[in-house]
C-alpha cells in the first residue's frame, strides 16, 4: 500500500510529494507543487496547514531556523487572514512564530516594532467588540451579578470593585436587579479600575444616570491605573468598615503569573516579600486583605502556560481553533469587526503565547484546576455557583442562538465551552477568616 517510514517511493500521494519537496531546501523544487495548492479543497488545505504549522513550530523550537524559514514560506502561500478558519489561524500562528524567530535578533526586532503605536482607545474598542461578538463576557457578567446578589442579601451597604471596568451594562444590570430586592436596594458604591479615564467617565455617567432613574443611592469611584493592575495602589480602593465588599475580576489575574517562578511561595508572600517571584501571590494577598464577602473570578480555561513552546503552541492551537470557529459560525467572513477581533485580540494573544518568554509573556492562561488551587492557597473558600446562577448563564447561552456554545459545571464553577472545548471559567469565592 504505502510506506510507513516515509521513504520516498514511486507510489506517492500528492502530499507525500509535498513532503518530499520540503525535505530539500532547493527552491526550484518548490515551484512545481504550487499550482496544485490553489486547487486544494479547504479541508485538505486545512490539514496541510496544521501539519506545516507543527513542523515549523518544531523547527523553531529546535533552532533549525532554515527549515523553519522554508516552512514559513510554504504556510504563507496557503494562509490568509481573510480566508477560512484554518487559514486565519495559520496566519496568526505563523506571524507569532516569525516574531519569535526575529527575537533572536533583538536589534532587528526592535527596529521592526519601532513605529508601533499603542492606541489605548483601539484596545478598548477591540475589547468591546469581543464583548459584543461572543457570549463569554455576558455569561460571566450574568453569573457574577447573580453571585454578588446572593452574597449581598440583607446588606445595606455594598461596595463593588471592578478590576477592569469597561462594560457599563454589567453594572446597569446589577443596579436593576438590586432595585428589585424585597428589602429595597442597598447603598451601592462601585469602584471601577481602568487604564483610560474616558472609559471610566463614560461608565460613571451611565451608571449614575441609571441609579438616578432607579432611585438607588449610588456612588462611582474611578481609579485610573497605567501599565497594568500591578501598579494599583490598594489604598486608593478605600474600603470602609461596615460595607460589604464584592470584587469582580474578569480576565485580570493571569498576567500576574508572568515570570512567576515559584507558585507555592505563598508563605513568603504573606510575610510581605514583594518581588518577581510572587506577583500573583502578592496580588491575591492584597485582595484577601480587603476581606471581600464575595469575589468572582473569570479566567480563560486553557493551559497556555506550559514551559516549552511546543506545549503552549499545541494547546493554543486547539483553543484558538475553537474561538475562531465561534466567529466563523456567527459572523460573516467579510466582517471587519471580526477581522479586528481576530487580529488585534486573538492575534496579539497568540503572539504573546508563542513568541514571548519570561516576564514579557503575559497571556498566561491556565486551567481551572490550577486557579482553584491557587486561589484556595491564597486564603479563599470556593462558594460555588448557585443552581440558579448556572441556570441563568445557560439560559443566556441558549438564547444566543448558536448551539455550539455550552456551559457545564466543574467543582462548583461554571465553564463555558465551544463544542467540547472549555474556554472560560467563572468561579465565586469568599474570604476564609
Amino acid at each position, binding site marked *: 500500500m*504505502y510506506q510507513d517510514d*516515509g521513504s520516498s517511493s*514511486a507510489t506517492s*500521494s500528492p502530499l*507525500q510529494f509535498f*513532503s*518530499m519537496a520540503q*525535505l530539500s531546501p532547493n527552491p526550484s523544487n518548490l515551484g512545481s507543487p504550487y499550482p*496544485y495548492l490553489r*486547487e486544494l479543497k*479547504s479541508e*485538505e488545505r*486545512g490539514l496541510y496547514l*496544521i501539519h506545516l504549522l507543527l513542523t515549523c513550530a*518544531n523547527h523553531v523550537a529546535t533552532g533549525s531556523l532554515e527549515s523553519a524559514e522554508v516552512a514559513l514560506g510554504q504556510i504563507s502561500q496557503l494562509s490568509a487572514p481573510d480566508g477560512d478558519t*484554518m487559514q486565519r*489561524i495559520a496566519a496568526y500562528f505563523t506571524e507569532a512564530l516569525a516574531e519569535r524567530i526575529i527575537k533572536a535578533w533583538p536589534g532587528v526586532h526592535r527596529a521592526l516594532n519601532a513605529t508601533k503605536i499603542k492606541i489605548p482607545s483601539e484596545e478598548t474598542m477591540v475589547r468591546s467588540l469581543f464583548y*459584543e461578538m461572543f457570549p463569554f463576557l455576558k455569561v460571566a457578567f*450574568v453569573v457574577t451579578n447573580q453571585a454578588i446578589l*446572593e452574597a449581598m442579601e440583607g446588606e445595606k451597604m455594598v461596595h463593588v470593585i471592578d478590576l477592569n471596568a469597561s462594560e*457599563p*451594562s454589567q453594572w*446597569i*444590570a*446589577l443596579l436593576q436587579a*438590586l*432595585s*428589585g430586592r*424585597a428589602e429595597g436596594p442597598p447603598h451601592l458604591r462601585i469602584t471601577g479600575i481602568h487604564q483610560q479615564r474616558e472609559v471610566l467617565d463614560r461608565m460613571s455617567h451611565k451608571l449614575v444616570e441609571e441609579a*438616578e432613574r432607579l432611585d438607588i443611592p449610588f*456612588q462611582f469611584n474611578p481609579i485610573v491605573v497605567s501599565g497594568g493592575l500591578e501598579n494599583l495602589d490598594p489604598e486608593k480602593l478605600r474600603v470602609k468598615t461596615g460595607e460589604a465588599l464584592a470584587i469582580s475580576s474578569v480576565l485580570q489575574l493571569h498576567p500576574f503569573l508572568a515570570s512567576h517562578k515559584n507558585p507555592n511561595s505563598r508563605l513568603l508572600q504573606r510575610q510581605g516579600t514583594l518581588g518577581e517571584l510572587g506577583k500573583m501571590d502578592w496580588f491575591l494577598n492584597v485582595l484577601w486583605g480587603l476581606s471581600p464577602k464575595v469575589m468572582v473570578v473569570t479566567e480563560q480555561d486553557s*493551559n497556555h502556560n506550559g514551559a516549552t513552546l*511546543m*506545549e503552549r503552541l499545541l*494547546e493554543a*492551537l*486547539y483553543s484558538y481553533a475553537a474561538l475562531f470557529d465561534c466567529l*466563523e*459560525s*456567527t*459572523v*460573516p467572513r467579510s466582517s471587519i469587526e471580526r477581522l479586528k477581533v481576530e487580529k488585534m485580540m486573538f492575534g496579539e494573544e497568540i503572539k504573546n503565547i508563542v513568541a514571548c518568554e519570561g516576564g514579557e509573556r503575559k497571556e498566561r492562561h491556565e486551567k481551572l*484546576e490550577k486557579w482553584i488551587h491557587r486561589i484556595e492557597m491564597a486564603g479563599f473558600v470556593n462558594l460555588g455557583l448557585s443552581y*440558579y446562577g448556572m*441556570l441563568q448563564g*445557560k*439560559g*443566556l447561552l*441558549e*438564547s*444566543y*442562538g*448558536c*448551539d*455550539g456554545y*455550552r456551559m457545564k459545571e466543574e467543582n462548583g464553577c461554571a465553564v463555558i*465551552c465551544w*463544542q*467540547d472545548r*472549555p474556554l472560560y471559567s467563572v468561579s465565586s469565592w469568599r474570604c476564609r477568616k
Partner: protein
Amino acid sequence: MTMLHTQTHIHITSACHPRIDPDAEVIALSPKTLMATNRFICEVCNKGFQREQNLQLHRRGHNLPWKLKQKNKNEVVKRKVYLCPEPTCVHHEASRALGDLTGIKKHYSRKHGEKKWKCEKCAKRYAVQSDWKAHSKTCGTREYRCDCGTLFSRRDSFITHRAFCDALAQESARNPPPSLASHLFTGAGGAAAGLANNMTLGISSSTAHSSAAADILRLGGSTTGPGQFDHLLPPSTTTATSQQFRNQPGHLSPSSAAFFIPQQDTSDHHQSSYHQPFHHALMQQFSSDPNNAGGAAANQLFSLGFDSTTTTNNNNNMMTLFANNNNHGGGGGDHQHQMMMGSSTGGSVPLFSSSVHQQQMNNMVAHMSATALLQKAAQMGSTTSSNPNATTSASLLRSAFAAGPNHNNNHQKSSSGEKQPSLGTFGGSFFGDVDTDNGSSNNLHDLMNSFTSAANNNNNGSSSSNNKKLTRDFLGVGHVAAAVRGIATTISQQQQVGAALEGSSSLDSERNNNNSMGSHSSFGGNPSFQ
C-alpha cells in the same frame, strides 16, 4: 467697637424667630473682629487661640501663671445679641440681631464673605468650612434628577415634582409604556415568575429566518401598558392560537423569539391573548424534543416549581438584560428603556444584546471547522508503532488533544524530545488507504473525491443520530456542530476511547483500512467532555 470675650453659652435663637428680648445686650462687632480667628495670642510662642480658656491651658505648658475664669453663678448674665456689621444687611438692625456669635460669624462669611471652599465633585463653593464639609459628604451620593433636568437632594420634593412635571408627561405619551416582559416578571405569584423563567430560557432572538420565528416574534413582542397581563399567569391553553404554534413547521426552539425584546415593528401588536399559547407552545417544544439541549434545562426549570423568591424575580430581569437580540447593543435605545420601565421588580432592559445573526448558514460552504480539522489531523498519522521514535504532527496533536480539555497537562507523549517529526510518515499515512498508483494530478482529484465522499458518508451516518433540527449535512451545507458532534457520537458509540488514547496504532490502521477516510472512530471522543 467693643471687643467682647464671652465664655458663656448663648442660646441659639433662630433668626427666623421674631421674638425680641428687650433686655438683651446688643453687640456690634467690626468685620475684623468677627472674622478674627485667633484673638488670644500666647506671649511665649505667639500661638493663636480662639478662646481665652484655651490660651490659659496652653500657658500651663510654658509654666506660665495661668488662670481660668469661671462663670459666676450669682452674676446675672444678660443675653447678648449680635449685629451684622454690613450696613446693607438685614441683620444690621437691632431688631433683627442674631443671638449666636458663631451664627453671626457664619452668616457674615456666607453672605458677605469670600467663598474659599470648593466642592470637588460639583462646582459649588462655600465660605464656611463646615458647610463645605457637610455638602461634600452628600454630594453625588443621593441625587434625584427629573427628566426635565431639575436636580433634587430630597426625595420627597423630587417625587412631588415628578408627579406634576410637564416634561415627564410629554415623554411618557410619546414613548410606549412598559412592556409585557416586565409584567411577566411582576410577580403575581410564583406562576408568573415561573412563566417568565421558562420563557426566558427558551428564548433567543436571532433574526427570524423562518417566517415561523417571525410570527412568534410578532406575537411575542410588543409593549402595552401595565396590568394587562395579570390574567396571563397560569399556563393554560387557548386552543386556536396554540394550534398555530404547534403547527409551525421546522421551528427551532432556541430561536423562538425573544418576545420580551420586541422588534421595533411589533410594538403595535396586541398580545394579551397570545401569551398563554406562546408559553404553552414553548412548553410543548421543550417537552417534545428530548434531545434538545435547551430542553433539558427548561425541563428542569419546569419542575423547579418556582418559589417566587425575590432573587428569582430579580434575576429574571438580569437574564433578559443579557439575552440576545438584534437591536443595537449596549444600552439599547430609549425605546427599550421605556418599555422595561415600571416593573415592580426593577424593570429590565436588554442590555446585553448582541448582533449575532445566524451566520452559520452563510459560511458553511464546504468548510470544516478548525476544531474538526485538528481532530482529524491528530488521528491521521497513525503509524507510530512502526517508528516509535518519530514524533509525528499527528501524535503531537493527539497528545495535546487528549491532555487538553479535561485532563491535567501531562504531556508524556508530547515533544519533550523535540525531534523532527517524520514528515514522510505523516505524509504517507495522510491519505490512508487511498489507491496511489502514480503521483499524477489525477490522483489528487481522486483523493479529493474520496475525502469528500468519505466525510459525507460519515457525517450522514452520524447526523441522523442527532435530532436537532439545526444541524445539517456537514460538508454540504452543513452546520459546524453536526460534524463535530457526529464525530463525537460515532466515537463514543464505537467505544474506542481507551484504545485511542493509548495511541495504539494497530487499531488505527485496521480501521483506516476497513473504513474509508470516515473512520474518525479512533479518536478521543471523550465522554467526559460533557
